[in-house]
């Protein structure tokens, strides 16, 4: 049994390393496709027919989209593979830093209210940063057109530790679709909102590696409340 487990762990590690190399190497041909098309567009803007310019633009945009997918896959494999060390993390300071570094999380685009003070949790700082950034970016992205995102961040103490909650005024998620939300490539609002469908899978993987859990409470049209359950330091 132990031997079989060891073999399986080795196979998973090899697969993850393979996946990392593959996605890393995909960026080079994508760079060529995007950049060569940009150069052709730049050189030929006045000579090309408008429909050809449009085709080049679409090729460039598709390469960019595929590259975002590759970057998210790289992040997912990195979070799955890299050694992780848990320490006491000041969540309040971490969230202030995340908001301070991202204009899309600040007024006039979004209003994020933090119910202070927030307790410290046991976490890996880069992984928790990634989780919270993904949740906040989703919270401000999935709002009705023209609306300003309003997000409330608060913490609840419970037996298992600390539950960090991110409550938004967004478009909400149908109950039936909530289960598959944290799996790879699952996009509930695929056509109207850009995304790769990997962001929440990264959150789930990172939280699991920090011995925690993640989930959501939501109803369509009623906003969502995503949460991270983590241990106390």
């Amino acid at each position, binding site marked *: 049994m132990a031997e079989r487990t060891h073999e399986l762990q080795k196979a998973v590690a090899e697969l993850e390393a393979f996946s990392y190399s593959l996605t890393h190497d995909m960026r*080079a041909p994508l*760079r060529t496709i995007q950049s060569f098309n*940009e150069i052709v567009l730049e050189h030929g803007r006045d000579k090309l027919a408008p429909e050809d310019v449009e085709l080049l633009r679409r090729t460039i945009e598709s390469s960019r989209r595929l590259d975002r997918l590759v970057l998210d896959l790289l992040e997912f494999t990195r979070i799955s593979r890299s050694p992780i060390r848990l320490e006491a993390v000041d969540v309040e300071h971490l969230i202030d830093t995340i908001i301070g570094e991202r204009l899309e999380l600040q007024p006039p685009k979004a209003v994020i209210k933090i119910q202070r003070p927030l307790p410290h949790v046991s976490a890996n700082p880069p992984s928790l940063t990634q989780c919270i950034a993904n949740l906040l970016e989703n919270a401000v992205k999935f709002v009705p057109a023209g609306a300003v995102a309003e997000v409330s961040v608060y913490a609840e103490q419970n037996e298992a530790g600390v539950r960090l909650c991110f409550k938004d005024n967004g478009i909400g998620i149908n109950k039936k679709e909530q289960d598959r939300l944290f799996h790879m490539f699952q996009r509930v609002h695929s056509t109207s909102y850009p995304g790769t469908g990997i962001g929440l899978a990264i959150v789930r993987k990172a939280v699991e590696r920090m011995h925690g859990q993640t989930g959501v409470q939501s109803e369509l049209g009623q906003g969502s409340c995503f949460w991270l359950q983590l241990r106390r330091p």
Partner: protein
Amino acid sequence: MNINAQTVLLAEDDPNDVFLFKHAFESARVDNRLQVVNDGQQAIDYLSGAGEFADRDKFPFPTLLVLDVKMPRKTGIEVLQWLKKQENLSCLPTIMLSSSANPEDVENTYRLGVNAFVVKPQGTESRVDLAKLIKGFWLTFNELPNVCR
């Protein structure tokens, strides 16, 4: 050693990336001579002035070394390891390029004394911005000790 030469040595095995780097240098109006080698061993031979690179008028010692992290024969990291052991060359400013910011690569190269770790820009606009920054900082404001010229 040609003291007046302001040369940038690029070690890059992907011909498309070489093209894009040259295009960015031209677009950013970087007048410095760009020399290109296609693997890590060639980079070491160039820096040592060995074999085909013996003529320093033709292959001037660079002001800046730009290394791709993944290359055949010797990787960018192996070239950096070699460089830092060379008494007269170890101060040569070196930028490491990679397709992604693998934390292990970033940490290893910084421990070895790299001056910057840069993820290769995917688009032309940001690549030209990078070329302008290289020109503005490393090739204009930065001063090198005499031993590294």
